[in-house]
């Protein structure tokens, strides 16, 4: 029964992973992200583990426009168990270029030391064109490192945005040590998908 419940949880909860969108209390995070849609630089500060506020500057490759956002992320729900953690986040952003440019969405993750699953859905409202993004990401840690070790995740990610209209699936590698994280993937269609993060 336990196995069935765990499997169902895995299937139901799996969906985007913006790795740790909220830091520890008083913690700051800098993220750089690039994929086929955008190049982004994002800083956020977390007054508590429940929410973060931040600024994002991005260059939209498809719409060929630059945006700056004030962003807010809120932890809607967290479930801690001895061997797992599950999170559900609300994310939003309003552009400094005008409130007609904004986004909102949810993303969640469930992970153990060995397994990771994440999902996300984001609705983007733009003066030029509205669109949505969604993804599902699943991962496996090939070895279980101790605290402070170099950690590795092998992942598979599938994503879709309404501008391109089709799903793109590709492998990802995620590495982290201490406060540094790097994640990258590649396929012929979406090209490079890379994410760098530093927490301090």
């Amino acid at each position: 029964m336990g196995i069935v419940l765990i499997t169902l949880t895995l299937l139901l909860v799996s969906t985007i992973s913006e790795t740790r969108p909220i830091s520890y209390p008083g913690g700051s995070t800098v993220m750089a992200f690039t994929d086929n849609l955008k190049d982004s630089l994002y800083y956020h500060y977390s007054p508590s583990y429940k929410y973060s506020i931040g600024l994002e500057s991005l260059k939209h490759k498809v719409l060929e426009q630059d945006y700056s956002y004030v962003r807010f992320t809120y932890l809607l729900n967290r479930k801690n168990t001895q061997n797992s953690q599950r999170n559900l986040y609300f994310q939003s952003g309003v552009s400094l270029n005008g409130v007609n440019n904004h986004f909102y969405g949810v993303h969640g993750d469930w992970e153990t030391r060995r397994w990771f699953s994440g999902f996300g859905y984001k609705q983007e409202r733009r003066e030029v064109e509205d669109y949505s993004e969604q993804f599902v990401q699943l991962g496996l840690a090939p070895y279980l490192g101790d605290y402070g070790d170099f950690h590795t995740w092998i992942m598979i990610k599938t994503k879709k945005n309404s501008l391109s209209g089709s799903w793109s699936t590709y492998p990802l590698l995620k590495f982290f040590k201490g406060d540094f994280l790097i994640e990258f993937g590649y396929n012929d269609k979406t090209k490079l998908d890379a994410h760098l993060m530093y927490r301090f």
Partner: protein
Amino acid sequence: MNKIFRAAFLIYCAFAVMVTYAESSDQHNGHIHETLVDGEKLEVDPELFGKFVEGLTKSQIAIVSVKGMVCDFCARGIEKTFRKDKTIQKINVDLSRGKVILAYSMDKEIVREEISHNILINGQNMTDLQVITIN
């Protein structure tokens, strides 16, 4: 969703079931305990604990059991919170057993609620606390 994703998803689910079962079986059968001089059970990796107490004298070691500390990133915030406490001499984490190990000076009064609060403000939960004195 394309065929590659479907296939990968099915393989993932199959592995998830197998590994989850294997890992949960390990937890029931392979929980390591070491008995201390006073008969108390040590619920932390003995090797890690041995290295941690090397060179420590006249200290109190708090072994904190934490729920939800499943990754290095989760534990890092806990470490940074406790680092602000100047009575703490040393900190380490046993990720495999979900423990935070803290070395306090002898003059510090260890308050369970204070440690629990420091874990909670990081979004995790303390479930148990074991205090060992090193003379």
